[in-house]
């Protein structure tokens, strides 16, 4: 599904607008819009500088260190990497054998907690300001503080749902960050009855909050029609894990891909065959690869992952409240895949309710406090682990040598799967909202809203203070800086004319703009 805006025929004659959220150190997004003399968007690209060095970081390490090590790839979803790596490294301990029931259920509990807290954080603290107040609301108000001023209880729920998930993670892994719990071959720490009961005490409240948050997300989206339905709405494929009967499964399953009409493209693809299904294309202007279905090629084979894909793809959800919500969602879409980017928030809260119900069910399962944690089997030398992380399908693939050191590693993270889709979202929004209009913070925020729907993991790990969160540059085709728009950390806008050459303000590790 190519888009005419990706590559302009005569980029040398265009102006360039750069939206640069430099809130991370090494990995941060940047949006480049090439404008023509009439200020029409002629070319749009989302640059994400990230994920370089992941494989190099892992290679040469003993496999048993990998699940702990990969948690350093992401400060927000360390558990997702822990579980994907554990699943891949299970092969090095138990081969094709299955985990013990208790170990698998403890991993599932850990995963539900991770997805719940991440989804809640996204909705309450990132998406809700846009949805509640509209994209053109004053920047000083359109943020989490505005939500807390107007909807204090909503913000409080978000914090407490996040905390609940984090506390389950702490109880299962022993630490708030970089705990273990899940290890190759099983789980290394049983859940005590006391801790199980502690988790149980709050789950009824959490489900109730998920119910109300889902209703809010749905109502805000439906109330925002037709604008929210049109916003960054484009056809694409959708990929996620499903069980043999088509039920969505966050922890395990086979790959399913549907098209925009809701028809199956492929189904029940063994994750071990992912390289037959997916190929990753490299483009010269970004470090991020562009995965797509091998059989359909880069133009037609790209797809989205994440909550929207999970809900679109599922034949059903195996928890009652979430299943009722899924049916309502699919009915709204007329049985086809819902393709509106902002429907992602509605889908995300269905996903979240499913997690809360899943936690409740697991806490009632006697196996969850079992002590048979490690399985045995015949070790292999290659392992592939795939899970549905909060932002979508996460794949870890390793091979080890006779010395048990990792010789080969390949990671495809959710943000990479969504790369083409995020570019498409930016192009779609730019074409509709930027053509012929003055560049204002409100207009630029439309692009941010589109990016936020996918919540890309921008580098995932480094945290450092002191960077400007947003920078917009207009650069003439001859390289002269025409305008600069700074968005400071306090939200204030500044439009100074820069005196240095553009190259002086471009991080050295970025790909050439004109590549």
């Amino acid at each position, binding site marked *: 599904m190519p888009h005419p805006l990706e590559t302009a025929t005569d980029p040398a004659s265009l102006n360039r607008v750069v939206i640069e959220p430099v*809130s*991370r150190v*090494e990995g941060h997004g940047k949006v480049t819009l090439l404008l023509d003399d009439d200020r029409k968007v002629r070319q749009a690209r989302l640059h994400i500088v990230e994920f*370089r*060095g*992941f494989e*190099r*970081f892992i290679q040469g390490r003993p496999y048993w260190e990998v699940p702990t*090590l990969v948690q*350093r*790839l992401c*400060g*927000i979803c*360390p558990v997702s990497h822990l579980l994907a790596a554990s699943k891949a490294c299970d092969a090095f301990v138990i081969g094709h054998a299955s985990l013990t029931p208790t170990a698998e259920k403890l991993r599932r509990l850990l995963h539900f907690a991770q997805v719940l807290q991440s989804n809640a*954080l996204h909705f309450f*603290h*990132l998406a809700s*300001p846009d949805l509640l107040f509209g994209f053109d609301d004053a920047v000083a108000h359109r*943020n*989490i*503080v*505005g939500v*807390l*001023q107007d909807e*204090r209880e909503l*913000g409080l729920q*978000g*914090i*407490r*749902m*996040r*905390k609940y998930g*984090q*506390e389950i993670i702490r109880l299962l892994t022993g630490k708030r*960050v970089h705990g273990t719990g899940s290890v190759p071959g099983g789980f290394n720490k049983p859940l005590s009855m006391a801790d199980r009961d*502690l988790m149980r*005490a*709050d789950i009824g*409240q*959490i489900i109730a909050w998920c119910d109300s948050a889902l209703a809010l997300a749905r109502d805000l989206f439906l109330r925002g029609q037709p604008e929210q339905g049109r916003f960054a709405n484009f056809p694409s494929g959708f990929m996620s894990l499903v069980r043999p009967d088509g039920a969505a499964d966050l922890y395990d399953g086979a790959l399913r891909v549907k098209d925009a009409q809701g028809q199956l493209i492929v189904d029940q693809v063994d994750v071990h065959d992912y390289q037959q299904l997916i190929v990753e294309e490299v483009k010269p202007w970004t470090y991020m690869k562009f995965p797509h279905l091998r059989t359909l090629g880069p133009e037609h084979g790209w797809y989205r992952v994440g909550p929207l894909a999970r809900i679109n793809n599922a034949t059903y959800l195996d928890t009652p409240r979430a299943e009722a919500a899924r049916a309502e969602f699919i009915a709204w879409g007329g049985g086809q895949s819902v393709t509106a980017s902002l429907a992602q928030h509605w889908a995300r809260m269905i996903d979240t309710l499913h997690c809360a119900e899943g936690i409740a069910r697991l806490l009632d399962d006697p196996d969850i406090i079992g002590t048979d944690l490690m399985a045995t089997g015949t070790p292999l030398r290659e392992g592939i682990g795939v899970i549905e992380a909060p932002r979508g399908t996460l794949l870890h693939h390793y091979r080890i040598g006779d010395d048990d050191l990792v010789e080969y590693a390949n990671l495809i993270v959710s943000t990479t799967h969504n790369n083409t889709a995020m570019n498409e979202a930016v192009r779609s929004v730019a074409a509709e909202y930027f053509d012929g209009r003055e560049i204002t913070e409100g207009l630029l925020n439309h692009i*941010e809203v589109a*990016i*936020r729907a996918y*919540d890309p993991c*921008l580098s*995932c*790990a*480094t*945290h*450092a*203070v*002191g*960077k400007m*969160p*947003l920078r917009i540059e207009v650069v003439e085709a001859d390289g002269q800086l025409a305008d600069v728009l700074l968005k*400071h*950390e*306090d*939200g*204030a806008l500044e439009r100074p004319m820069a005196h240095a050459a553009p190259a002086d303000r471009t991080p050295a590790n970025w790909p050439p703009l004109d590549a």
Partner: protein
Amino acid sequence: MNARSLIDGDAPLPADWPRTLVIAVGNPSRGDDAAGPLFAERLSSWLNDQEHNPDGSRPHDLTILCDQQLMVEHAYDLRDRDRVLFIDAAARQGEPVQWQRVEASASGPAISSHQCTPSQLLHLCTHTLQIPPPDAWLLSLRGEGFELGAPVSAAMQAAMDQAWDAILAWVTTPDVHGQPVNQAAAPHHA
């Protein structure tokens, strides 16, 4: 919600809840971003080496936390604290070591859900959780490289050495509460 709740922000705190908090932030595997975790480790080791008071109580009223990212739930860690010190690496700043007072503020990066600033945390305390915000300071250390798997640079190591005495002064001198730390307890940064 009862006192055993995981999410009850109003649950009673232990009687010996320390009134001083250090939150170190960073990724130990990303070059100079490891400054925060390394300080947390060094400070914890130092604390463990301190002899208890004759009555068995702790010699310093201090909690040390370390995390890869600062996130909203850390607001709960600020409950009933008099003072908090955030320690983090800085991507861009003029001085190798910089102290600054943290004021509550709502604004900040909001393009992804991957971070929260100390100012935003204080704002959450004040406006959402009804927690009186502690006297808060940010110690930032200028980093040079943040590549995955990279070691801590010599410059960052020097900055950490420079900052250590000031951190100890801040931790061990309750009087600095409400005072300009860079003058009262951090002479290296005056």
